[in-house]
């Protein structure tokens, strides 16, 4: 046996598979204790600020990207191979054994479980026993004055089905990592979306996914309704209505998207993830010329949707930036200043703080669309606007025309997930079969005396009752015969 054969044998032993499974469990722990980049990048940044040196070392060990780290993948892939190497040969062996008869009756039944001598004549005992065993769906092998019977063969079938299904799930997860795409987009009510990469705010493609694989649908956001609990302000329902066309240009169909019911096109699904308000404003310069008109997306800050945003006007000279907040239901307290007291729009207010100078957009550094870099600017005015109000800030005017709701849609294509679901269902079925099937053998031997005995695999209970009822059957048939 050479070294590779030895290694293969070691890797595919059940012991190794189990150790790898335990290691996968252990390896997933740090990911639940430290913030993860793919789940919460902000928390990772905070962690870096709080513990710079420690964070650097942890980052080298990929602690912030545990589930895509080389060491996690290594365990995963080894487990995958080990499981295949462990389960496939056993399945082939098991499949070969399907047609086979139960193993021969052992020589000495006396040493087996539940050994009994049945008090009846030997004649016809085997026939009676065979009838009873077949009625109880045992597989029967009759040879030389003895019967060996077996039942519960499906225990191993279920066991193997379970483990094969795990392989299917692992395959499906891997497929999800190699094919598919995931992206997000923020859309105002009234906007139209076409499913191409450029329409997204951000989108990531898996290794083997091509742009041409994207489902060519379009959406028009017709209406978004959010309802809230009056006492707690907690949301009770979100309903999004869209006009959808697939493929592009076909007749539009009215569809409803809710948090737990995405819009589905094959393996592509459109999820409603977040929502907020976009105040609609119009800005004119000193001469009254329209510089900007439309909705500006604001970012919610609390449960009552107090939202912040930035209105940037790089085309005015000098440049103008407005640090703004939107309050759907305006309230004011000495401690907090202006805030929103309810997430629905009941008494909306737009607060603008107007700055003049250099917006810093040409510096090349990426800027948040929700904030204004005021380091090279001068404050020239502050105003709270109700709908319809016009505010003259000296360099021009701003009109608060109204508001629209926006929704954040997540669009995910995961072709692997159907297989994962099938794998999961089969795994449960296999597990139930294997854990609730009792595998046992029963033997009857006739050589002058009539002897019965049995064997229950893994010591599962119930064999004694079964032997007892076989004994009863043998005695009863004997009476009939007489």
């Amino acid at each position, binding site marked *: 046996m050479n070294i590779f054969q030895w290694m293969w044998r070691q890797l595919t032993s059940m012991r190794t598979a189990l150790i790898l499974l335990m290691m996968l469990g252990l390896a997933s722990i740090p990911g639940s204790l430290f913030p993860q980049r793919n789940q919460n990048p902000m928390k990772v940044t905070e962690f870096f600020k709080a513990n710079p040196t420690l964070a650097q070392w942890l980052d080298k060990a990929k602690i912030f990207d545990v589930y895509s780290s080389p060491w996690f993948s290594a365990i995963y892939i080894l487990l995958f191979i080990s499981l295949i190497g462990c389960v496939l040969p056993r399945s082939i062996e098991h499949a070969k054994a399907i047609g086979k008869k139960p193993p021969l009756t052992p020589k000495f039944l006396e040493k087996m479980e539940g050994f009994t001598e049945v008090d009846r004549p030997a004649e016809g005992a085997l026939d009676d026993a065979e009838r009873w065993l077949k009625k109880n769906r045992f597989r029967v092998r009759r040879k030389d004055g003895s019967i060996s019977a077996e039942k519960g063969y499906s225990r191993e079938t279920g066991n193997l089905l379970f483990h094969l299904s795990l392989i299917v799930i692992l395959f499906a997860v891997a497929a999800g990592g190699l094919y598919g795409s995931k992206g997000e987009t923020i859309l105002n009510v009234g906007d139209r979306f076409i499913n191409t990469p450029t329409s997204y705010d951000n989108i990531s493609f898996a290794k083997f996914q091509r742009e041409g694989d994207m489902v060519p649908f379009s959406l028009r956001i017709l209406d978004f309704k959010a309802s809230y609990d009056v006492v707690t302000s907690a949301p009770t329902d979100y309903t999004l209505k869209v006009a959808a066309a697939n493929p592009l240009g076909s007749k539009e169909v009215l569809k409803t998207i809710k*948090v737990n019911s995405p819009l589905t096109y094959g393996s592509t699904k459109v999820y409603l993830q977040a929502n907020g308000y976009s105040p609609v404003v119009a800005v004119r310069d000193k001469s009254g010329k329209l510089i900007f008109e439309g909705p500006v997306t604001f970012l919610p800050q609390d449960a009552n949707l107090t939202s912040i945003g930035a209105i940037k006007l790089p085309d005015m000279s000098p440049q103008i930036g407005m640090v703004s907040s939107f309050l759907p239901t305006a309230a004011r307290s000495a401690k907090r200043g202006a805030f929103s007291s309810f997430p629905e729009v009941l008494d909306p207010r737009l607060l603008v703080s107007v700055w003049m100078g250099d917006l810093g957009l040409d510096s090349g550094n990426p800027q948040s669309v929700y904030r204004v870099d005021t380091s090279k600017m001068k404050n020239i005015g502050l105003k709270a606007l109700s709908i319809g109000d016009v505010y003259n800030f000296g360099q021009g005017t701003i009109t608060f025309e109204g508001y629209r709701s926006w929704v954040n849609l997540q669009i995910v294509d995961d072709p692997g997930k159907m297989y994962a679901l099938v794998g999961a269902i089969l795994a449960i079925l296999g597990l139930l079969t294997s854990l609730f099937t009792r595998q046992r053998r029963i033997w009857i031997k006739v050589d002058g005396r009539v002897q019965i005995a049995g064997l229950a695999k893994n010591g599962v209970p119930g064999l004694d009752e079964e032997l007892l009822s076989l004994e009863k059957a043998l005695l009863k048939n004997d009476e009939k015969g007489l």
Partner: protein
Amino acid sequence: MTSRNLAYLSNYSIYSAMVLYTIAFFAHAVEVSFSVKNTAETEKTTFDFSRTDRAGRIGTAMMILGFIFLFAGVILRGASAHRVPWGNMYEFSITGSLAFSGAYLFALIKYKLRWLGLPVSIAVLLTLGTAITILYRPSAPLVPALKSTWLAIHVSAAIVSGGVFLLANTIAATYLILDRMEERGGRNEWAKKLPSLETLDQLSYRLVAFVFPLWTFAVIAGAIWAESAWGRYWGWDPKETWAFITWVAYAAYLHARVTAGWRGRKAAWLCLFAGSTFLFNYVYVNIYGTGRHTYSGL
């Protein structure tokens, strides 16, 4: 009846259940401590069941009554909010206690496990006490993400699995305590009435083997729900991660028993370890963890 009245009624039921469990606790304590009669002359321990049987029966009666009141409390809580009562940690705790004491009553009928009444009543009392003082939240409707049929399916499977896991843990812990006593030269007086080590060993295994498929189902149901609510079926959210770790630990336990032939002490420790990953998930991840399983405060 208004929602608020129903919520109050639910609270009263929970308080009543706590009183009943307290009585059950004392009755079982009396049963355990007075069941043994030591005759000094022979230095032999004899049992006087006639004396303690009544206390034990009172304990069981109180456990059943407590279960009924707790059941009413959980149902009324659900009725007050017009939904299944599994929206926050207070509700998980009262439903979890219900599942745990239900599993005990089931085991009582099937395996004659009255002696477990003492640890079970303590555990239920502590859980309910923590729930109603620290974790309590007023009854409120669900946030949209929780509005799904999967809430009932996923959470009920998880809670029932949890109840049975904890019962198996209690039995494994009892095993280890008794095992230690026997190793040191014999059981203490009060422990002589408890079942043999082998019975305890078998029982904790059977409970785990029985409920492992249900836990697997709970995880899968969670994945199906996550797919329709969050756009992915598995995302290594802390709750998901720890559910997976619990699953792996119990899978290891089952393999250790069935294929590696682990019995007794080693198996009991492994069982305790697996159960503690479930508890960690419930306590740590719900309270300190971030991630998408945190709703409505707790």
